[in-house]
């Protein structure tokens, strides 16, 4: 019912800057879609175009079967939660929640009932008489969410709703938001620059850069098979290690310190792409690098420990090698200190090779 479809969506600003370029995207009914990307990648612009707050330069937006390009924001049956909450400062929480219903001309008793239901869901019943300036950041965000859910819209648009909150509250509200999604069972488009939020919440993720969709897929799919070096470096904490390597004559991946032979099926791809003898980018996740050798690991690469980040449950260790900087995760009990020389082994079961020139995935 609330399926959304973006067709060749483009936004060019007056100064000829293209914020969004030819975006095609299908958002299924009741899907939790997360658009993620660095600042200025066009994710908020797309959201604002869906809401009707930004003019579309070219392309179409469909909600269900209806083309909504020329439908004003108020008639699109869409709500938006803003990063800075945008609560009406002169109204109480009750009136903030009730405002959209009043504008629709819904009768007072019905408004009262819906405000009370919404307040109950978000546990803000005791705040109804307060004004926004008397609320904490988390409470404001709850009211902002309440203002959205009270309308029971077809689509929820959330524009970095958690980024103004402190870290602890952010994690807490993240879980709450997801529970709310399950409860409301509706379509949500969520914009964030925080890839952790994207990974933890989205049923589908869209990674954007410079107004162009880089990859669309499930969190797991994007994490395991990033389509280019940008996605590989953007998704995942810590980001994927990207090292320069060369495909030598025997179709092995040649590093400065060691080389390993590719599997036969991968050799086919390399041959077909004409990568033999060329430089490529080799990608490996931190958890695929170990300090001990096993059957399927390749190496070793020797390097010096530069930084150790203690996360409690694990240590992120940054190592400088002649092949480039690497980060690996080790058990907190591991005896390791800065300036230690250590040997690293690559678990190449999950292989990532990218074209050096355009960053696209080869394998």
């Amino acid at each position, binding site marked *: 019912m609330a399926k959304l479809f973006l067709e060749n969506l483009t936004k060019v600003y007056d100064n000829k800057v293209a914020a969004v370029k030819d975006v095609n995207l299908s958002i299924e009914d009741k899907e939790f879609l997360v658009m993620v990307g660095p600042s200025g990648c066009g994710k908020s612009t797309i959201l604002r175009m869906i809401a009707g707050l930004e003019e579309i330069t070219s392309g179409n937006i469909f909600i269900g079967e209806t083309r909504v390009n020329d439908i004003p924001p108020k008639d699109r049956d869409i709500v938006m939660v803003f990063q800075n909450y945008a609560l009406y400062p*002169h109204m109480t929480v009750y009136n903030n929640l009730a405002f959209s219903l009043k504008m629709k001309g819904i009768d007072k008793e019905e408004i009262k009932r819906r405000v009370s239901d919404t307040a109950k869901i978000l546990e803000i019943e005791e705040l109804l008489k307060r004004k926004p300036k008397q609320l904490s950041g988390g409470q404001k965000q709850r009211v902002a969410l309440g203002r959205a859910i009270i309308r029971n819209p077809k689509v929820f648009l959330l524009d970095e709703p958690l980024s103004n909150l402190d870290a602890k509250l952010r994690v807490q509200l993240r879980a709450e938001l997801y529970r709310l999604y399950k409860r409301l069972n509706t379509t949500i488009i969520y914009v964030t620059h925080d890839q952790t939020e994207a990974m933890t919440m989205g049923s589908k993720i869209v990674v954007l850069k410079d107004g162009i969709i880089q990859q669309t897929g499930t969190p797991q799919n994007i994490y395991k098979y990033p389509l280019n070096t940008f996605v590989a470096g953007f998704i995942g904490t810590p980001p994927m290690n990207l090292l320069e390597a060369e495909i030598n004559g025997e179709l092995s991946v040649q590093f400065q310190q060691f080389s390993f032979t590719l599997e036969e099926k991968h050799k086919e791809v390399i041959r077909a792409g004409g990568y033999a003898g060329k430089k490529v980018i080799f990608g490996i996740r931190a958890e695929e690098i170990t300090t001990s050798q096993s059957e399927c690991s390749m190496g070793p690469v020797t390097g010096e420990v530069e930084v150790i980040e203690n996360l409690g449950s694990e240590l992120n260790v940054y190592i400088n090698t002649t092949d480039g900087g690497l980060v690996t995760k080790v058990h907190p009990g591991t005896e390791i200190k800065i300036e230690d020389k250590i040997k690293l082994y690559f678990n190449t079961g999950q292989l990532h090779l990218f074209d050096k020139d355009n960053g696209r995935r080869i394998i």
Partner: protein
Amino acid sequence: MKSNSGFWNKAIRLVLLMILTYVLLFPMTVALFTSLKPPGEVITATPSLLPHDFTLQNYRVLFSLREFPRYLLNSFLVSCYTALISILVSSLAAYALVWMNFTGKRTIVKAIFFTYMFPQILLVLPLFLMCYELNLIDTKMALVLTYLSFSLPFCVWMLKSFFESIPEELVEAAMLDGCTYLQCLFKVVLPVSIPAVTAVLVFSFVLGWSEYLFANTLIISDTNRTIAIGLQTLIGYYRVDYGLLTAASIVMTLPVLLFFVTVQKYFIQGLVVGSVKE
């Protein structure tokens, strides 16, 4: 040492403020007490600030003059119309200039600013001729229209600057909540702009209330005179009744004073605080 310097800072500031207040309030105080003196006491060989006998005689005489209440009413009407039309038109204009896109927007903004740069005296003749052509001479409408031409550019700029400080998301949220442009202006933008709205109201009201030059030029008949001109009629050809004149001055000041007292808290109140995360 630090608290000592804080004390002196405060003391100096207080003394300076006292001097300033004294300078500003002195004429008012003299006028007030003079208006409360009986006629024989107004001009004496040894002047005194406080009257020996307090009397409201001057006020009684003032309000018994047939024209005086009419002058007050005329001024009140002209000022109220000026203030209300100013806020209505300038808020609509400022809203459009801040949140709507149309061609020539920048030119309009500059043009509005440009109109504010003319000295009033330069416009007396053209405006008089315009009013004459429009058959508006000796009408209150002529005054209101003239005052609007002075108050509107200022009010539009004032509101425009204030609206620009309102987060755009607030307006967008209202639009998504189902507001039309007008509803958004009256239900969201103006309520959060109370300090600016008050300033605009005060400015245009006071302009209408105290303006002299145009009121003197455009109004001819006694029935349409405003208080600023009416005050002048109390000055006789051979003799000035200072008791009566000061009483009239005090009466003329009162509405503006009351208006200020009523709205001053809104000047200070920053309503936008707390609406969004700064």
